[in-house]
């Protein structure tokens, strides 16, 4: 394989019902960095139907060129039409790097494409950088997050990776950025369209499993009552967290048992755990001490929760949380 023929950083910019998903913009930001390091260009692959101003958005967030494919076959995501469109772009344009968001769509599309192109694909990356040899270094968690591995795809092009939503930094939106928009025509092989979408249903998934939350805001006696928990919920809403509680609060009926952390509740290990007004009885610690980062706020400076906290604040939750929520909103 002549690697020199392959150039530029391509991003699959996922849209759903015309709305560009955040991960697409995050990837454009990252692609910008990578392309600058390589002294190459950023291409956005924008697929859909009845597209309007999305291409301009891609440019505002860092794309040099938007390859726009507007076709009725692409109105709703289905594996095969999307795979055919992107395969054709890859075949005709020979990108060096292809980035895809690790959403349910990206994780459906990515491997299908990688097998069609016969190249490597690194899943769910949390870090991307360019090596001295101008290869892409793709870092991802393995073994349930216990191990980080940096993957390289040296002899094959394009280098493909899916990237977790929320980990890359979105670039500054710049309405004045200049870029070009090219409309691409795809010759679909409809005989391969074998999956029929009957309906797409939007649903807020209210059956929350606190063991799967990335950020948990947990309240104890120091939060006091249902009003105190409204305060925690307000904070949770601003940062996309879930609310959980110590046993005392669950027994008091403030929260359901499915949200109890600890010995008689659930064991959680989120990336970020806020222990709000929780003293840290041994039963509670058993359920949360393996959290990645623990921030504890408690009035009692001798509270055992401070023994496991990465950051401890001695103070009144009821005063700090509203202030914190205000700041987080900004």
């Amino acid at each position, binding site marked *: 394989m002549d690697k020199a023929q392959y150039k530029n950083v391509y991003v699959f910019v996922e849209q759903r019902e015309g709305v560009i998903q955040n991960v697409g913009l995050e990837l454009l930001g990252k692609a910008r960095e990578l392309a600058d390091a390589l002294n190459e260009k950023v291409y956005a692959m924008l697929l859909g139907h009845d597209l309007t101003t999305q291409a301009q958005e891609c440019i505002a967030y860092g794309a040099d060129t938007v390859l726009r494919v507007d076709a009725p076959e692409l109105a709703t995501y289905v594996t095969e039409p999307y795979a055919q469109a992107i395969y054709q772009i890859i075949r005709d344009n020979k990108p060096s790097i292809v980035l895809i968001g690790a959403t349910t769509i990206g994780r459906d599309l990515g491997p299908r494409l990688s097998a069609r192109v016969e190249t490597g694909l690194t899943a769910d990356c949390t870090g991307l950088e360019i090596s001295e040899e101008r290869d892409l270094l793709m870092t991802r968690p393995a073994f349930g997050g216990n191990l980080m591995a940096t993957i390289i795809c040296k002899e094959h092009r394009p280098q493909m990776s899916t990237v977790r939503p929320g980990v890359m930094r979105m670039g500054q939106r710049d309405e004045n950025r200049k870029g070009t928009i090219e409309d691409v025509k795809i010759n679909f092989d409809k005989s391969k369209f*074998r999956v029929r979408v009957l309906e797409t249903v939007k649903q807020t998934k209210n059956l929350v499993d606190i063991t799967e939350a990335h950020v948990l805001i947990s309240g104890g006696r120091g939060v006091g009552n249902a009003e105190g928990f409204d305060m925690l919920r307000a904070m949770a809403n601003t940062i996309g967290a879930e609310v959980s509680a110590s046993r005392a609060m669950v027994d008091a009926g403030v929260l359901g048992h499915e949200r109890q952390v600890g010995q008689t509740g659930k064991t959680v290990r989120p990336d970020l755990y806020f222990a709000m007004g929780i003293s840290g009885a041994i039963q509670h610690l058993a359920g949360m001490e393996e959290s990645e980062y623990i921030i504890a706020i408690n009035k009692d400076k001798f509270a055992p929760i401070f023994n496991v906290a990465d950051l401890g604040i001695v103070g009144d939750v009821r005063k700090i949380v509203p202030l914190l929520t205000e700041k987080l909103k900004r």
Partner: protein
Amino acid sequence: MKIVVCIKQVPDTTEIKLDPVTGTLIRDGVPSIMNPDDKGGLEFALQLKDQYGAHVTVITMGPPQAEAILREAYAMGVDRAILLSDRKFGGADTLATSNTIAAALRSLEFDLLITGRQAIDGDTAQVGPQIAEHLDLPQVTYVESLTFDGNKTFTVKKSMEDGYQMVQVDTPCVFTALASGVKPRYMSVRGIVEAYNHPIETWTYNDITVDDQKIGLNGSPTRVFKSFTKGVKAAGQIYEVDPAEAVDIIIGKLKEKFII
């Protein structure tokens, strides 16, 4: 109907701990289990067997010890078990793995192929769709539930971040299953008692037709460049300050550690 289910033996990653001193992974004594999503897929197949009398084959690629999950599959009720095992298959990334398994599947007849969405040791979710591509079969990933019309059409509920999709597809096709969509049955006592009376077919490189440049380490476009653990946790910092200052400290830490 004939169903093939791809299963994988994985270390139970929930049991893996970090050495608190060195920060390295402690792998000793970690039990090996059938990958949860694969077990979910197997349950879908066994339910189709209960309802429609489907014949269910399980296939796994792995070292000889992977036999354990094939026995488990027998105890759950499958009809045939195949172990793909050869040193030549080793060191494979997802693409090479999918090439190997797809080659084996070419010599099996089936109407439906089920894999798990992803394995807990790698979490890539790639091998299922890659196999589907190699075999030129339609795929439905993230399958939460399914119904069969008794003839050739499946109606499938496919999970998405913000809801779900209902899709239809005819056999032959490939599904990748979610463990959360189904509760796998336990092995029955009788199934366990009889599990070791059934044959395990071991297939090596010589039993399948595949280009040896497409399998194992040679056939893997990706390599591990380096691996590392996040290291040992340092002692925490405690501040006793007024609320406004506390908020600044928290925001500062969040900015440093996370993206807000």
